């Protein structure tokens, strides 16, 4: 009997260890090389096996695994990355000059490889968000040049190419079906060596990185979806860096470990200008006047946000100086008990609270408000169909390309794909179309702010707060890159 039990135990032991998550706590230690390993807790687990064509691209670029031809600098302009420089040949053609670099599989970053990589991206289905509606062709040009031709004039191509989903991978990273695999094929300072499902990943330093050897020997990444759990991981010292700490948990972290970064994410109240009570501009104006944004920034976000100033917040550094006052706003009419539904989603825990505060503010002004809170994917199709009178939405205003016009075109123009406010206004459409055509950066920004003023003038959108993202950074960590576009986190200088 005892022998049987022993045998059973011996048999069960490996079966049980199979039931634990591997890639675990004490992964490969980098003692052989210099520098210690960083431990990072990320919020969003890979959804598509770390394919760069979807949202996982952000994970890859934040971890310093992949690089694109260009990057965004602090002012939201294109900066050199794998391409050291570029110039516009004519209005449809650009020439990018590559720097000397190698892929993590040891091969050279040649113009042919880069052109092939971009071609793979254009052929992906569905196409990466940065390329939606764009047709481009990439060809090698000489020993260091890549010539990119677009079907239509594209004044923001260098910005577009900074998108993490246009990361450059070695030929080995693509299979015959067109799927892209960044494991060991990218160009960044860190190289993925192991991925365990959606729970963890192991990165090692890539020694031949063109920008110099990283100071950390490697990175152990854990994907922890629950915000409180990420905060707990930082507090118990299980991780050095924890991404996106929810506002509710921020107070539980030491002040020294709490870093705030203004983001391009704006939470706004969208009023359904297509149908229902808010089709009346007078009522929209009444709703706008009823909203007190400072109560939201201080009360709900506990000061971890800035009160809404416009569609673009303080993270878009040039916006404040160029902002124009909206003109031609309608006069507010008395709501007199108008019934409205206000919808929002609970994937971001602050939004239901914002909606409840708004409900009180609107009711004080004379509206009768019914709330509808759902999970986002259960809400979106109804919202797009205009079934709600008002919607509280957190939106990244520099989506995908880093081009400020994109969000205006998709969210507020008549045929925009994400027009949740159901806005269709000729003045707005003209202003947005005008901005789309301007090539010069400064002038484009001026045109964008004119379009913003036109949109705000319709009162279809009431900016509520500009969120700041809170990153938990262990006290011993140096050199974490916190940027407003949420595209970087680790680089060669990050260490503990």
């Amino acid at each position, binding site marked *: 009997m005892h022998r049987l039990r022993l045998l059973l135990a011996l048999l069960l032991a490996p079966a049980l260890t199979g039931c634990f998550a591997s890639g675990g706590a004490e992964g490969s230690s980098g003692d052989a090389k210099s520098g210690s390993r960083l431990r990072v807790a990320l919020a969003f687990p890979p959804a598509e096996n770390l394919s760069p064509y979807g949202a996982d691209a952000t994970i890859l670029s934040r971890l310093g695994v992949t690089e694109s031809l260009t990057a965004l600098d602090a002012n939201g302009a294109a900066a050199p990355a794998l391409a050291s420089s570029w110039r516009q040949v004519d209005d449809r053609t650009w020439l990018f000059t590559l720097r000397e670099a190698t892929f993590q599989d040891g091969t050279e970053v040649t113009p042919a490889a880069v052109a092939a990589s971009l071609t793979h991206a254009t052929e992906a289905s569905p196409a990466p968000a940065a390329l939606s509606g764009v047709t481009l062709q990439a060809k090698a040009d000489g020993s260091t040049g890549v010539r990119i031709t677009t079907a239509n004039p594209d004044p923001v191509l260098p910005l577009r190419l900074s998108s993490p989903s246009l990361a450059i991978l070695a030929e080995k990273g693509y299979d015959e079906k067109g799927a892209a695999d960044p494991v060991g094929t990218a160009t960044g300072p860190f190289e993925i060596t192991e991925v365990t499902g959606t729970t963890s990943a192991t990165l090692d330093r890539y020694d031949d990185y063109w920008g110099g050897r990283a100071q950390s020997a490697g990175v152990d990444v854990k994907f922890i979806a629950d915000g409180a759990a990420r905060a707990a991981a930082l507090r118990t010292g299980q991780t050095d860096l924890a991404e996106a700490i929810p506002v509710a948990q921020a107070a539980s972290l030491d002040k020294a470990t709490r870093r705030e970064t203004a983001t391009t994410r704006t939470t706004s109240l969208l009023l359904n200008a297509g149908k229902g009570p808010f089709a009346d501009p007078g009522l929209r104006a009444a709703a706008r006047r009823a909203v007190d944004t400072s109560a939201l920034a201080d009360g709900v976000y506990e000061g971890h946000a800035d009160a809404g100033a416009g569609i673009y917040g303080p993270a878009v550094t040039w916006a404040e100086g160029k902002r124009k006052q909206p003109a031609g706003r309608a006069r507010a009419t008395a709501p007199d008990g108008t019934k409205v539904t206000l919808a929002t989603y609970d994937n971001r825990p602050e939004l239901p609270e914002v909606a409840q505060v708004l409900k009180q503010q609107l009711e004080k002004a004379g509206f009768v408000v019914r709330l*509808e*809170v759902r999970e986002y*994917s259960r809400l979106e199709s109804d919202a797009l169909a205009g079934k709600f009178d008002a919607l509280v939405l957190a939106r990244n205003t520099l989506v995908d390309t880093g081009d400020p016009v994109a969000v205006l075109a998709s969210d507020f123009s008549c045929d925009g794909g994400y027009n949740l406010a159901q806005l269709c206004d000729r003045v707005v459409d003209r202003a947005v179309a005008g901005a789309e055509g301007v090539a010069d950066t400064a002038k484009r920004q001026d045109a964008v702010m004119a379009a913003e003023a036109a949109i705000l003038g319709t009162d279809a959108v009431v900016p509520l707060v500009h969120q700041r993202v809170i990153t938990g950074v262990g006290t011993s960590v140096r050199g974490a890159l916190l940027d407003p576009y949420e595209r970087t986190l680790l680089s060669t200088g990050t260490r503990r």
Partner: protein
Amino acid sequence: MRHQLTPLLWRSGLTVALVCGIGLLPWLSRTDPALTVLKARSAERDPTPEVLADIRDRLDLDDGPWRLLGHWAGGLWRGDAGRSWISGAEVTPAVLQALGVSLLLMAVALAVAAVTAGLVCARTLYRQGRRGRAGGGSAVLAALPEFLTASVLATVVGVQLGWLPALGWYGPRWTVLPALALGLPAGAVLGRLLDDLLPGAFAESWARAAAARGLPRRIIARQAVRRCVPALLPNTGLFVVGLTGGSVAVEQIFDIPGLGRTTLQAALAQDLPVLQAGTLALVLLAAAATGASRLAARLLIGPALRDGALPSLHRPTPPARAIQPFLHGAVLLAVVALGLPRDPLALNTRERLRSPSWAHPFGTDALGRDVLARVAHGALDTLLLALAISAVALLAGVLLGLLPRLSGPLVDTVNAVPPVLGALLVTAVAGGGPVTPALAVSLVAWAPLATHTSALLRQERAALHVTATRGLGAGRWYVLRHELLPAVLPPVTRHALLRLPGIALALASLAFLGLGAQPPSPEWGLLLAENQPYAERAPWAVLAPAAVLALLGALAVSAAGGVRRRPRHRTVEAPVERPARVRELVGAE
């Protein structure tokens, strides 16, 4: 042969129907899977028609549900459950991995539950059934929401004290806290059910004979447990499946890559291959658990069941404990009475998260609302709805429990469906009306009651007095009405009341699908959910609703002490006398 075949066919039929139901879900609910898949892949991506068309094309969605189902089922015999619609990864290894994690968690949780159940019954076991019952402690424990226990354990034990790891799933030490969060309430329910049966066992003649013979109390207690456990095994089987597939909150808080989270994500994104595979695994597990619990019951009391030689498990005398329910009721009423004059909706963000004071006896929540007012105003809605659902579940549970052949496989299937998926299926069929959440919860809530009923009935049918009554010429209806139901109803009713707080919580857990109470309604489940993120900074905001919920549990259980079999015209010696008579009757056949 037919006896074996019919249930098997019924069971397979149900499984097929369930899998088909999942396969048809997007088409029934008219929710475009391309859209939900896109949002699961990348929440920020604009759903332009071109992108959706590309996804539809990639996933062959235009083939229609039946061809997709057929294709998926075609690969099953090879162990190939297709590829995930979200990630494109193979489903089988991912689901098996998650299942392994969940099974291990469930096993440890079950061990915790066994210990908890033992502690709940310790007093009864020690006193061998002589008067006095464990108080409302276990009912309070049973009413504790898992996510609350989990976050308290994670913050206090894991983070502040640092005794055990609060996060991840890397070895045996990581299993302790999540297993405690899951096992404590489950153990409390099982312990209550066991505690309910034990006095009956101790009152049986063999126990008295053994005591008179001078056998050690330990041995008598062990035999009494052995005598009662078979009635609990089916319910334990339900917990096995429920804990494996439905511990989403605990998996999230402790970051465990289990099956609950996998199926939840798949259900929301309508990632049908993963959802079908995960549900199928759970249904198979349910069948296995049922089989195992039958086998165990047969091993424990098989011969007695076969020979109809079980004494009835009626408790001898109902303990008259009149004061406890009144006490619980009075406290609950007082809270409601104090809170009703206050405004549950007036928010003031400058007063947020204030600790309890004279102005706000229960403190304020994250929006500066008075927690006492919210608890009191939520009481009526919560209680009425939960009571109504409990009543429906009790009725359905007892009726279906009377037909174990029909209901057994049905219970297993229903219980194996993850709650969110169940709600989605109900919404797809019944639409998103105001009764949908109640319907969705009732559809699941009857299952444990039916199981309990069948288990008790199985034993009761084998009891001597039933054989005797039948032998005296009583018809089936007479036996049912006068012998079986009176014996079965009281414990099942107590069980239903014990699950009352759980039903209130289940209702709230559907809110995020846009079903049921919506903020700012002060419904109790919603109160708990909205204050959970602040549990560490403002514990009162969660503890107050949790406490009233626990109080409700204690009230339900202590009041249910009155739901007992009416003392019938027989003396305490009756069970001792009856066997002799029955043997004569049986012998005369």
